[in-house]
Each structure stands twice: as structure tokens, then as C-alpha cells.
């Protein structure tokens, strides 16, 4: 238990971690697109006019 464990290949675990990685990429791209698409409208709704939050 005290010794260092070398990661062994496990396809199911790799799939699990891969799914998280893919989700991260999809969310980065997806939310980025949504920000461009809906950002100005959201700013208008929140502050009554477009302001840059960048």
C-alpha cells in the first residue's frame, strides 16, 4: 500500500476519463459559441444596453 503504483491500462477507466475530457472540450467550444451568440442580448437584458465585459 505504501509503495508507488504504476497506472495499468484499463479501457473502461480510459473511456471514463476520456468522456470527461471530451465533455470539457465540447463545453469550452459550446459555451464559447453561446457567449458570442447570446452575450450581447444578455448584456442588453441585464444592464439595458451593451457593455463590454471583456
Amino acid at each position, binding site marked *: *500500500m*505504501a*509503495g*508507488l*503504483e504504476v*497506472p*495499468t491500462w*484499463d479501457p*473502461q*477507466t*480510459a*473511456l*471514463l*476519463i476520456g*468522456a*470527461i*475530457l471530451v*465533455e*470539457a*472540450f465540447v*463545453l*469550452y467550444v459550446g*459555451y464559447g459559441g453561446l*457567449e458570442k451568440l447570446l452575450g450581447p442580448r444578455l*448584456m442588453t437584458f*441585464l*444592464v*439595458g*444596453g451593451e*457593455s*463590454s*465585459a*471583456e
Partner: protein
Amino acid sequence: MLSSLDIFGSSPEMMALFVGFGLVVGILFGFFGMGGSFLVTPALLMLGYDASVAVGSGMAFVFGTAVIATLKHHDLGQVDYKLGVIMIIGTTIGIEVGRASVYYLEALGLAGGVISVAYVVLLGGIGAMVTREALKSDGGGGIDHEAADKDLSEYEIPEIAQTIQETVRIPPMVTLRGDIRVSAWVITAVAFSTGLLSGFLGVGGGFIRMPAMIYAIGVPVPVAVGTDLFEIVFSGGIGSYLYGQGGGVSLAIVAPLLFGSALGARIGSAATAVVDSDGIKIYFGGMLLAGAVAVGIGEVGSYLGNQLLETLGLVLVIGAAVVVAGAIIYTTVASLRATRSQRAPAAD
């Protein structure tokens, strides 16, 4: 392993809770550059998950969040890859030792208690430090948003880092971005210590590693932030894989948390351009202290078998995070409205 993949095995209420909590955690992470991930593990512990699942899923969540943030910082040129690779080696060993400790303590039936106590000490200590700094001056924890705009050569090396650089000159010496020369052993020691905490508590370790890189190694703030995130992608990925092999990563927890936090991080990051973080740092310190108290109350409740105390602990830890995230959004919208109303008469 099947239980790790049963994303639909979670109730809609739990999914909604995780998305909401992820959103709050993301806002805090995006705004302060730290301080969201370490709320997840204690919250999962208080929800009754096994220590290995709470820590493993917390780490997998950190991994996903770091991937998203690194993509952004890579474009800004704020990643020192040489420093990152050395940090990765030291942190990986540290994580493995920390992870082995969790399973060992779990076999003894002590994991939940020891991890909770470590959180109380850590959150309490850092919370007190950040609050003190926020009260004392305009410095303190989190990212200095104005500093992020400066050139790397303009950064002053903290006194303590200068002392370490001059005292510890064990070869090999490494030159980092910003013309900093430091012993590779100093970097390795920082990496191992923070990796140990990371593996033991299931946190990215950014809230310890980032100040450590700035104050012990002496790297400029933006490079510390970018390199830290780059490193978390690897350390979090390996840590998640190792926990996943033991059935410690639940996609039913991680996926909704990430879904919420990715959005929250964008909101928090955008808010940094509008709001001066100094005023909010005190709330951040307060949130950490509340988190420490909450974990303590939850643990006492668990020890006494008192459901009410356990629930109170959970409400406190989530409530404190929600209050600070709400304060960030409220202050941002108020600042934007004030700016607009100032511009409107000028335009007339």
C-alpha cells in the same frame, strides 16, 4: 465500474443540485482563479458518498475544469512548459502517495474523519490568511487582476523567493520565464508537497500551489496561474485515472458539475474585467472559514449520528459558496449599470 458509468442512475434532483453547485463553483474559480474545487469533496462527503468516490470525483471534476481553463491561458502565452514538466513529475509522485494514504485510511475506517479534519485545518488556515490579507491591504489570495496585464519582466520577485533562490543553489539550476533561476529541487519539493495534499484531499491544489510558485519559486503571477492549470490537467488526469480504476470516479457526479462550472467560469472570468476583486476577497476568506466550520459541524453530526447537524454542515458549505458567487454577480451587474448611467449623461 458499471456504477461509474450510470450517468442516468442519478436522480433529476441530484443532477440539478450538481449543475447548480457546479455553476457556483465555476463562478468562484473564474473570478478568483482558485477556490472552487475544494468545496466539492467536502460537499460530497456530507452528501454521504464514500471517501474514495468523493475524493476521486472531486479530482475528476478538477481535471475537466483545468482542461477548459488551460485552453484559454495557452492562447495568452502564460504557460511555462519547462516548469510545468518538473512540477508534473513531483506532483505525480505526491498524488500517488496521498492517494495510497486515502485507501490505507479507508481500510482502517478512518478516511472520512481524517480527510475532514485535514480540510478543517487547511480551509481554516487559508481562510484566515486570505481574510487577514484582505483586511490588512489590497493584497491577498486569488489572482491580482491588474497584475495580469503587466509585462512579465515588470514583476518583482517576493523577498522570500529571492532568499530561497540565493540560498538553495543545488544543481541542476533551471531558468524560467521572466529570467528566474532556481534549483530544480526547490520546484520538485513544492510539487511533491502540493501533490501529496492534492492526492489526499482530491483537490487540484491550485490554492496552495499557486501561492507556493509565487512565494517559494518566484515566478510571475500570470505564469504561475497558467502553468498551474497546465499541470493540473496532467496531475488531475492521472489522479482521476487511478481513482477511476478503483471505482472512485462517478460520471453521474462529474458530468453535471462540469456542465455547470464551465458556464460559471465564463461568468466569473468576465466579471474580473468589471469588478475590483479586493472588496470581495474578504467574502472569499469568510467563505473558506465557513467551509471549515461546516465540515467540522458535519463531522460532529456524523460522529453523534445527528442528521440535523450533518444537514446544517451541508447547507453552510453550499450556502457560503452561493452567497459569495451571488455577491460577485450582483456587484458585476451593479458596476455595469453604474458605468452605463455615467456614460449616458455624457453622451447627451
